[in-house]
């Protein structure tokens, strides 16, 4: 008899799970939106034909800029951290402005937001991200440390009249860049929007000045160049909260 009650009880669980109106969470929560603007030399990255001037006056274009943003986390006022397993693929050429929405963040006061440009250290290993082609195509060769590409910035530059390629593909721990927005904010309203301005110029200008030249044709196996760019990307984001 007990078994029959167990069956009815278990079945009722499935029935209750069917209701269209999902039970509201006990703690009110909000969605947080991050709007990313990809900026190069003060403008949105939109025009593939545009020629830019590099740090040494070299002329270059951008044909591809794709990257991953991961592990957006929120620090509460009491110091505890709400970690998310977020992972977002951004194609800056296809979508100059991108929105990342982190859902169901409990309303309250927070003192800090952090996230990674690239894949967080914990998941940057073979098979660490969801098994979807969009991430699988971002695999970093297992023969070279494994994990995933953090970004692919590609284009051409003028090498004394000859068009040559550059391919800034970055990856490998600990080259991902962690960003922090350290301002107290509240999520108990409906307007929870942050702006992430990504300045592509930072790849080339600081703290290490990088001239686009033929050495950038293939850098995945060049650990010293990976390190140079790992330092340069530490300041690519300017983070602000959009105020209504």
């Amino acid at each position, binding site marked *: 008899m007990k078994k029959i009650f167990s069956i009815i009880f*278990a079945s009722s669980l499935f029935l209750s*799970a069917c209701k269209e109106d999902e039970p509201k969470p006990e703690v009110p929560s909000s969605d947080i939106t991050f709007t990313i603007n990809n900026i190069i030399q003060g403008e949105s990255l939109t025009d593939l034909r545009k020629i830019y001037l590099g740090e040494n006056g070299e002329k270059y274009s951008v044909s591809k800029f794709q990257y991953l943003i991961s592990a957006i986390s929120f620090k509460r006022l009491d110091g505890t951290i709400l970690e998310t397993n977020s992972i977002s693929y951004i194609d800056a050429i296809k979508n100059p402005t991108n929105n990342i929405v982190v859902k169901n963040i409990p309303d309250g006061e927070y003192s800090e937001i952090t996230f990674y440009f690239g894949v967080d250290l914990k998941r940057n290993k*073979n098979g660490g991200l969801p098994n979807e082609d969009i991430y699988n195509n971002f695999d970093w060769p297992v023969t070279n440390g494994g994990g995933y590409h953090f970004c692919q910035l590609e284009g051409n530059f003028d090498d004394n009249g000859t068009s040559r390629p550059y391919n800034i593909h970055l990856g490998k721990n600990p080259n991902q860049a962690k960003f922090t927005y350290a301002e107290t904010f509240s999520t108990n309203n409906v307007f929870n929007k942050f702006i992430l301005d990504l300045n592509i110029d930072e790849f080339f200008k600081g703290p290490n000045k990088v001239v686009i030249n033929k050495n950038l044709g293939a850098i995945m196996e060049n650990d010293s160049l990976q390190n140079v760019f790992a330092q340069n990307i530490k300041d690519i984001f300017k983070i602000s909260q959009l105020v209504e």
Partner: protein
Amino acid sequence: MKSFLVLAFVIISIVFIQSCVDDPIDKKKDEITNSPFIPIIPEGFSSSDFFKNIPVDNPLTVKGVELGRMLFYDPILSKDGSISCNSCHHLNNSFSDNKKFSLGVNNTPGIINAMPLINLAWSSSFFWDGRATSLEQQAIEPILSVIEMHETSANVIEKLKNHADYPNKFKNAFGDGEITFERVTKALAQFQRTLISGNSRWDVLLNAIKSSETLDSAFLKAGLNQSEIAGFQLFKTEQAECFHCHDTHLGTSNLFEDNGLNENTDGTGHGAVTGNPNDDGKFKVPTLRNIRLTAPYMHDGRFKTLEEVVEFYSSDMKNSKNLNTFLQDDAQGSEGGLGLSPIQQKNLIAFLELFSDTTFVNNPAYKNPF
């Protein structure tokens, strides 16, 4: 009694689970009455990507797949009853053609190499230039093309209506006996989505890499010899630059790339579809799966052997305007390509054999049903 209770629990649970899912099949109850076809997704392959590309109004069903298989092999779709889909897509060749250009009705030669039909469920673009965005859309063209089956949709419907078996087959597949051209393409698409290859040594290797502590132990698990290991390592280097386009279980990024076949690419390839000059000369990256069986190679079938393909990448790439940025320096260099040594070329070809999946070409579910 115990087994009865367990069974009752399972049945009740299934009923409730099914009742709450906003099931596209349920919405089409008037059309889809047969049981769903449950594909076997190979280990390591993405299930979500497989199902993502299936249109809501054309779910896989057992009878739909069965009908699609019949249509695929039946010359009834061609004008004079001389050719079927299978005439240009042979199972033994991983559903490609061993001819440079396949022959349509009246032996009319085609203008582009027949692509292999393999793991298409994971793709959302079809034909070398990507002009179709679904398998249903793709299936229309070969039937109507004057250099392929050269048939009209009206004739196809008429012939199928007058056939002894098809009206019943359509009824079983779609819930009524109505035969439409759209349903013909839907059934063909269903069958093609079931053409899954996931049983090669490449798959064994990729899965072993995920479960092994070291690469060496993965090589051991997958049984690679020294030449294959050297080829794999080369495949993964920036020197050979294969992995950006041909990695993962699929052996293709499913993207469009210019790999340096021609110098002048204006208005060709994906660019002819999008109208974007930045897509000129770009063609869909073909899968490496069963690459040994899919000769001749490239969209124009210009290379007869894998050896010719590797030699091309090594020394004969053209510096076209949209050439993949990783290949440009090589194409412009003095060697005209990747500059692979003879032993490197040999190792790379040995490695490419890992993509062979004999179970795919011997799968009875893919064979001619007639």
